[in-house]
């Protein structure tokens, strides 16, 4: 009750202040009247009585003020006052305020942006029900480099039957078994589109635990038990494709042309549904050709499995390794089965990992590196701000002392400085949040596929909380740094000395310490950035095995459903012929897989007079390259032995192939491969039967799967010899024209050949390259930006400390000059101070860099973490920056006029 009354009174005081004051006045007036009346009744004349009474009671304003003080609403009132005062005082020093808020915004913004990625990509669980139950199963061949690959169809089926740990095991394919390259042609309202596709079986959709937004999913009859010669003509659209391409009109049950065949749309996926970050737009039923379903060498299926409730990932792992002990005995064959100890290059083992790890993959390390980098930037920002605030507190000492003398309590002053901190870090935080959201958006736009799970990146509650935490933290830092300064200040000395603060030794060291820390962190960041920039430089200079200048490429697909292998070959031939007649096009050729970033084929190929480690006459060749036209000339791939394809080969009976250096080395081990024979399966490129091909030449290795990875084995087959073609081909032209200038011509040429076929990914080879190194490039750019920021802040810090020192020591310097010190001596003396601090910072930073740089070793290419050139360059840069930052205050000191300085004192 009492509390309520009090609260009411307080509220009334706050909101109806005139009213409360008015009541007090009424009360006092009554008092005055009573006094006058008393004096009149005791015989005083009324006028005199009034004057006497007023004399006794004194000024009423004073009581009013006293009562008001007592009311003490005051937390809120004080706060409002503090904020007002803060804004006024900050507006008075716009330079200081702008620097602080901009620094904070950059520091907080960078942290929020990167944390958004850390949170959205690494920490947030996947968007499936019970996502931690989802596991990803891959094959790995440790002896052959350990690259992760798909499982063969028999392995998948065997694993489904053997396991007891999983509630559901499903498979998908984005190529290989799917008869697509992870993309299909789709006609939406008469417009040919190229959309990203995935082929899934009914089990996979069950394993993921998702439900269709509309319609239904595939059934077992439509995937595993389907007996047709082509996959069933049904499809599920992603919510996004349904909205954008079909305007969201009712579509379930209707037909849409996919790969030239009408498909019935059976369902629509819920928004944002995807598998393995494939950016899937259309979901097709997975169906295996009977040959492929039997073939153990064909690794075509990716497997996702959901653990049974209560079964741990570890138990599943244990179960898998018991299977691997004797997989062959369990399934009754020794032929290319997974094994626990993969000793030979043909052996492979199976690996289980959580689906989230599988999706994030190797992106996690660069992201953590970036998070650490922005953490350093924030530390530098804080050090810088602490420095600025200390300097400002020094110059505001007189003001604070004066306020203390006038009765402001210490708590009140602390609140004032905390308010200042809060106002500035609040502004910095809001600005930072804005910067971060703009930055993340720009990043996703510029690098849509370099970061996994980008579609899920948003600034959500946890990110906002982190932003709030960062702002609060810096606000507290502010307040207490100013407070710490004042604790040591004695009122009298401060008043005597005026604005010029006494330089406590501890503060001097503290400020230098802060600069040293800034320099050290900056050194670490700049070294990291330097190493990554060099990595990118090395990557761009890699010889990928072909001449990429003036090469323009695009891709097109003639769907298998409505074309035959030979009509496709003729169609491609027509496209190439017409392109060759375009002015400015020097040469044109076509290939099935576009280097340096293509998917591996891993095709089992019989080879004459060859026995593999496991006693078979078959080798798995990583890449098949089916080519048309003068491929090697157009691409500029040198033939290192033998000869290239020639027109006369097409007419002759004997079929010929060309191998790459790695294949020649691996199979024929130093012997001359020319004249040896292999038998590539005709089904892989549209030929009706398998025939022996003779090796006629060895081509220089071409990087196929990432410029930084060593080349795998590759076999070149000339389609011109066979008169057939697989559905998808990449056309490449050596031309003096830019892709933009060619696009109309190319579209016309393709339309003339087949109006339903879209031209996709028309670009020059340089952009293909740029795309293959965009993740290291992104990392280098971001780290470079953060390092630049760190360098700038460290320079500001050095400059700030030195200029402050010069201001403090004006008198001393003035006397020195008066006593005959030369200007150059003063200059060097001050600069020495700055460079000393820098040198200590650089030393500490180098030690730190050496300690942590091995963490980024796996992100580097062609450069060691201890690269002396980089380190020397960084030291030179930092020293140059320090010289510039120190020179200005030193120069100012050397210009001091002793007369002026000494008179000032």
């Amino acid at each position, binding site marked *: 009750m009492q509390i309520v009354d009090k609260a009411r009174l307080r509220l009334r005081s706050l909101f109806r202040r005139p009213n409360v004051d008015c*009541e007090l006045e009424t009360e006092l007036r009554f008092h005055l009247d009573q006094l006058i009346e008393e004096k009149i009744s005791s015989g005083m004349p009324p006028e005199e009585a009034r004057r006497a009474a007023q004399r006794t009671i004194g000024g009423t304003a004073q*009581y009013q003020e006293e009562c008001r003080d007592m009311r003490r609403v005051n937390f809120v009132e004080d706060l409002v006052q503090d904020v007002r005062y803060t804004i006024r005082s900050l507006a008075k020093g716009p330079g200081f305020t702008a620097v602080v808020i901009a620094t904070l915004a950059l520091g907080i913004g960078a942290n929020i942006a990167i944390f958004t990625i850390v949170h959205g990509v690494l920490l947030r669980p996947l968007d499936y029900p019970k996502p931690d139950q989802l596991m990803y199963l891959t094959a790995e061949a440790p002896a052959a480099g350990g690259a992760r690959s798909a499982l063969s169809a028999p392995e998948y089926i065997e694993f489904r039957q053997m396991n007891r740990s999983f509630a559901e095991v499903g498979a998908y394919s984005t190529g290989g078994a799917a008869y697509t390259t992870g993309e299909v042609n789709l006609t939406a309202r008469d417009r040919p589109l190229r959309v990203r596709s995935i082929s899934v079986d009914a089990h996979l959709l069950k394993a993921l635990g998702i439900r269709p937004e509309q319609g239904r999913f595939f059934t077992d009859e439509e995937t595993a038990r389907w007996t047709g010669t082509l996959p069933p003509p049904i499809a599920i659209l992603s919510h996004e494709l349904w909205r954008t391409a079909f305007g969201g009109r009712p579509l379930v049950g209707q037909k849409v042309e996919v790969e030239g065949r009408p498909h019935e749309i059976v369902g629509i996926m819920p928004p944002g549904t995807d598998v393995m970050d494939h950016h899937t737009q259309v979901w097709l039923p997975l169906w295996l050709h009977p040959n492929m379903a039997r073939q153990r060498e064909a690794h075509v299926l990716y497997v996702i499995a959901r653990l049974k409730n209560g079964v741990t990932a570890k138990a599943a792992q244990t179960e898998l390794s018991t299977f691997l002990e004797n997989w062959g005995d369990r399934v009754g064959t020794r032929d290319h089965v997974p094994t626990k100890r993969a000793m030979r290059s043909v052996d492979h083992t199976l690996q289980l990992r959580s689906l989230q790890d599988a999706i994030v993959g190797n992106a996690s390390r660069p992201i953590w590196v970036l998070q650490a980098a922005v953490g350093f930037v924030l530390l530098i920002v804080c050090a810088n701000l602490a420095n600025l605030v200390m300097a400002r507190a020094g110059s505001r000492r007189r003001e604070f002392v004066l306020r203390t003398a006038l009765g402001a309590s210490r708590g009140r002053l602390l609140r004032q400085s905390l308010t200042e901190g809060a106002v500035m870090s609040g502004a910095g935080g809001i600005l930072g949040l804005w910067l971060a959201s703009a930055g993340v958006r720009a990043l996703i736009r510029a690098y849509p596929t370099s970061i996994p799970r980008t579609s899920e990146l948003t600034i959500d509650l946890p990110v906002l909380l982190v932003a709030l935490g960062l702002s609060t933290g810096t606000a507290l830092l502010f307040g207490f740094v100013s407070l710490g300064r004042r604790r040591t200040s004695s009122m009298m000395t401060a008043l005597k000395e005026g604005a010029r603060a006494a330089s406590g030794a501890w503060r001097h060291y503290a400020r230098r310490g802060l600069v040293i820390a800034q320099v050290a962190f900056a050194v670490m960041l700049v070294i990291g950035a330097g190493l990554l920039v060099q990595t990118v430089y090395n990557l761009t200079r890699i010889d990928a095995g072909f001449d990429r200048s003036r090469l323009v490429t695009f891709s097109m697909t003639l769907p298998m459903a409505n074309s035959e292998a030979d009509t496709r070959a003729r169609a491609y031939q027509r496209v190439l012929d017409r392109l060759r007649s375009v002015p400015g096009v020097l040469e044109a050729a076509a290939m099935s897989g576009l280097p340096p970033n293509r998917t591996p084929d891993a095709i089992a190929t019989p080879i004459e007079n060859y026995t593999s480690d496991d006693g078979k006459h078959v080798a798995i060749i990583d890449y098949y390259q089916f080519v048309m036209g003068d491929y090697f000339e157009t691409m500029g791939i040198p033939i290192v032995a033998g000869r290239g394809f020639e027109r006369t080969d097409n007419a002759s009976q004997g079929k010929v192939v060309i191998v790459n250096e790695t294949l020649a080395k691996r199979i024929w081990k130093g012997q001359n491969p020319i004249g040896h024979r292999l038998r590539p399966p005709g089904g892989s490129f549209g030929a009706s039967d398998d025939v022996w091909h003779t090796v006629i030449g060895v081509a220089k290795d071409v990087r196929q799967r990432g410029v930084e990875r060593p080349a795998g084995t590759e076999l070149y087959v000339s389609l011109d010899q066979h008169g057939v073609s697989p559905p998808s081909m990449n056309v490449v032209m050596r031309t003096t024209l830019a892709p933009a200038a060619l696009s109309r011509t190319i579209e016309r040429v393709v339309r003339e050949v087949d109006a339903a076929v879209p031209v996709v990914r028309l670009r020059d080879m340089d952009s293909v390259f740029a795309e293959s190194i965009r993740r290291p490039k992104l990392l280098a750019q971001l780290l470079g930006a953060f390092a630049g920021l760190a360098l700038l802040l460290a320079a500001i810090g050095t400059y700030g400390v030195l200029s402050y020192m010069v201001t403090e020591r004006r008198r001393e310097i003035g006397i020195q000059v008066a006593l005959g010190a030369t200007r150059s001596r003063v200059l060097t003396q001050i600069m020495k101070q700055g460079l000393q601090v820098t040198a200590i910072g650089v030393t500490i930073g180098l030690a730190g860099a050496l300690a942590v740089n091995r963490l980024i070793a796996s992100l580097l290419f062609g450069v060691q973490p201890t690269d002396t050139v980089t380190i020397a360059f960084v030291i030179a840069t930092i020293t140059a920056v320090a010289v510039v930052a120190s020179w200005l205050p030193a120069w100012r000191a050397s210009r001091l006029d002793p007369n002026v300085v000494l008179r000032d004192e």
Partner: protein
Amino acid sequence: MESRAQILPGTLDLLILKAVSLGPLHGYGVLLRIGQISNGALVIEQGALYPALFRLVRKGWLKATWGVSENNQRAKFYELTAAGRKRLREEIEDWDRLVDAIAVVLKTRPEQL
């Protein structure tokens, strides 16, 4: 003037509470009553009275209501709350203890030590 006693610091609240405990009063009435009871020995300055009243209201010892004075003017009347009554008792006890203690000290003679 000389016959008036100085009000000891800290006793103003006690006097006001006591005066109000004898019956609701307006501010001016508090002055009158204390003066009257003490036969003019204790005089409270107006400047101290109103802030003190205000403080006592805020502490919840007094309750203020608007009413009409003897001469039909609007005036604020103060009365004791339950908490105020309790407080008055405590203050009186404290005061008595203090007075006794001081009296003992003052009556002490050298031979008693």
